């Protein structure tokens, strides 16, 4: 009974039995009549959006055609991918212990549905309430709400990560690949007020680099953004999944179909380096420093030096979300059940604390912000107490 195959068989039987029992209660004909009754309203609602979206897409195409020629990136040609690095022995780990007293005050629900603490600007915490279409600015210590801005969020779409670029905060919203226009929302970085968005044919990944702000703007296409004007300046072909990172002067993205991590020169739009990483998955790419990416290795995470192709550090701790504090230490959350501090040089576990249902972490000054997606709560931990263990 306890063997996975038996359990899986029971699960299938249970769910199918439930479906059979539920089926007679479902009135598809009646629901279809209700659905058809709302179609005239849906037609009107979409018509206004389509006109604006079509105009914006035409503007992008025209801008590319009349301005700088769109760069068509090389697919790599006969480039041979560097092999996966040899992973060093896993760094030592620790068993989680209880949180230090006073490091965390249990809080009641604070009004979120699916909070994602993404960003800190001038000491103000920015939280995107996923699926609810709301950007909230908060005091990271008291969690007092400073402002709340709603944006148009449609069912089935998924917001990416709030990203600051100068005086603008960008929020790319990904849509399934079969769809056309989606949007990169823009907000005023000082007030949180929504600005006109950038309509694109695909979105999701975005990164701010010393040579500009780059984002997915079409399937397997990256664009250089003029964030102040809300425009796509030029585009080039590049395989991208959910995230982009910048290291060693290159933009990095996943070509999942071929299990490749691909490096593209953003100035020329050409692919100049790639690593073959079968068995590695597409966690959000994080640039730890100018030459190192944190990547999801088999049964853990590893640092990949993209200049040398070496993996200087590896740990069996499977961090799902991570953030770097002012001392350079790397904080992460493991399986929603442990907050860990890792040595960024070796990935050795320095501290590990038991928590419950933490999905995302973010460092905000002397606070560690954590989001609980089960209860829809944002919590704030005292970093000094976490570091001291007291």
């Amino acid at each position, binding site marked *: *009974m*306890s063997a*996975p195959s038996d*359990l*899986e068989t*029971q*699960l*299938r039987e*249970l*769910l*199918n*039995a*439930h*479906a*059979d*029992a*539920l*089926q*007679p*209660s*479902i009135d*598809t004909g009646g*629901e*279809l009549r*209700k*659905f058809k009754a709302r*179609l005239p309203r*849906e037609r009107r*609602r*979409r018509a206004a*959006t389509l006109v604006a*979206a079509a105009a914006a897409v035409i503007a992008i195409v025209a801008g590319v055609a009349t301005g700088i020629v769109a760069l068509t990136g090389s697919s790599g040609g006969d480039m041979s991918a560097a092999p996966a690095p040899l992973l060093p022995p896993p760094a030592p780990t620790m068993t989680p212990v209880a949180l230090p007293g006073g490091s965390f005050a249990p809080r009641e*629900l604070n009004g979120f*549905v*699916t909070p994602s603490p993404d960003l800190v600007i001038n000491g103000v915490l920015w939280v995107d309430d996923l*699926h*609810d279409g709301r950007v909230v600015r908060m005091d990271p210590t008291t969690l007092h709400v400073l402002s709340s801005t709603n944006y148009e969020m*449609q*069912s*089935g779409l*998924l917001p990416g990560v709030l990203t600051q670029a100068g005086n603008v905060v960008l929020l790319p919203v*990904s*849509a*399934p*690949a*079969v*769809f*056309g*226009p989606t949007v990169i929302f823009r907000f005023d970085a000082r007030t949180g007020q929504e600005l006109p968005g950038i309509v694109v044919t695909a979105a999701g990944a975005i990164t701010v680099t010393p040579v500009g702000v780059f984002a997915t703007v079409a399937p397997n296409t990256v664009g250089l953004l003029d964030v102040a004007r809300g425009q796509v300046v030029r585009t080039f072909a590049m395989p991208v999944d*959910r995230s982009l990172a910048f290291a060693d002067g290159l933009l990095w993205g996943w070509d999942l179909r071929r299990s490749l991590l691909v490096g593209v020169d953003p100035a020329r739009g050409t692919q100049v380096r790639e690593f073959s990483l079968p068995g590695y*998955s*597409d*966690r959000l790419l994080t640039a730890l420093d100018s030459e190192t990416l944190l990547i*999801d290795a088999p049964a853990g995470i590893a640092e990949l030096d993209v200049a040398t192709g070496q993996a200087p550090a590896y740990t069996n701790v499977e961090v*799902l979300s991570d953030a770097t504090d002012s001392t350079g230490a790397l904080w992460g959350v493991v*399986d929603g059940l442990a907050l860990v501090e890792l040595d960024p040089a070796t990935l050795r576990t320095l501290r590990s604390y038991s928590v419950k*249902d933490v999905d995302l972490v973010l460092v905000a000054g002397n606070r560690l912000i954590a989001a609980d*997606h*089960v*209860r829809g709560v944002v919590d704030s931990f005292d970093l000094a107490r976490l570091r001291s263990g007291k």
Partner: protein
Amino acid sequence: MIGGALGMAETDSVATPLDRDAAVTELFLTHHARLVIVAQMIVGDLATAEDVVQDAFASLYRRWPWIREKGAAIGYVHSSVANGARSRLRQRRRMRTTEFHDALIDVAPGADHAALQHDARRELEAGLAELPVRQRQVIVLRYYLDQSEAEIAATLSISKGSVKKHASRALATLGTRLKEVQ
């Protein structure tokens, strides 16, 4: 993606309203019941599940002119339903896990009721009801809709690695519960 083979022609042109109405209606009739069941398994009650599916098809209808691969459109509806159900659950927040448990065993009590009385089955139902919503989504998509890891990842807009982690954590939790009653 399930539902991809509906025999609907792909087109690059913007569909006329009539095309759109007919196409979305066909998808509705074909997939509505199954999608309501998926949503109900996540949110725990039929009325909310029906609302979630209505919203998903309305969103599909609005976006229909922009869909490049009409045959893959149902994949978008799957995403809408899974994420919409999760969102409704969060908005409700105070849903007791027992509501889902009761919903699982009390709908049409005459059907297969005897089998559902079995201790292991009841334990499994209770365990499923108490899973975090993301794990429950993965379990329902995997074992009811028979989606692959890649399909679940696309439906929920998460990585395949995350799908594996959520699935393994859910199976470990459910397996532990079953061991306790044996």
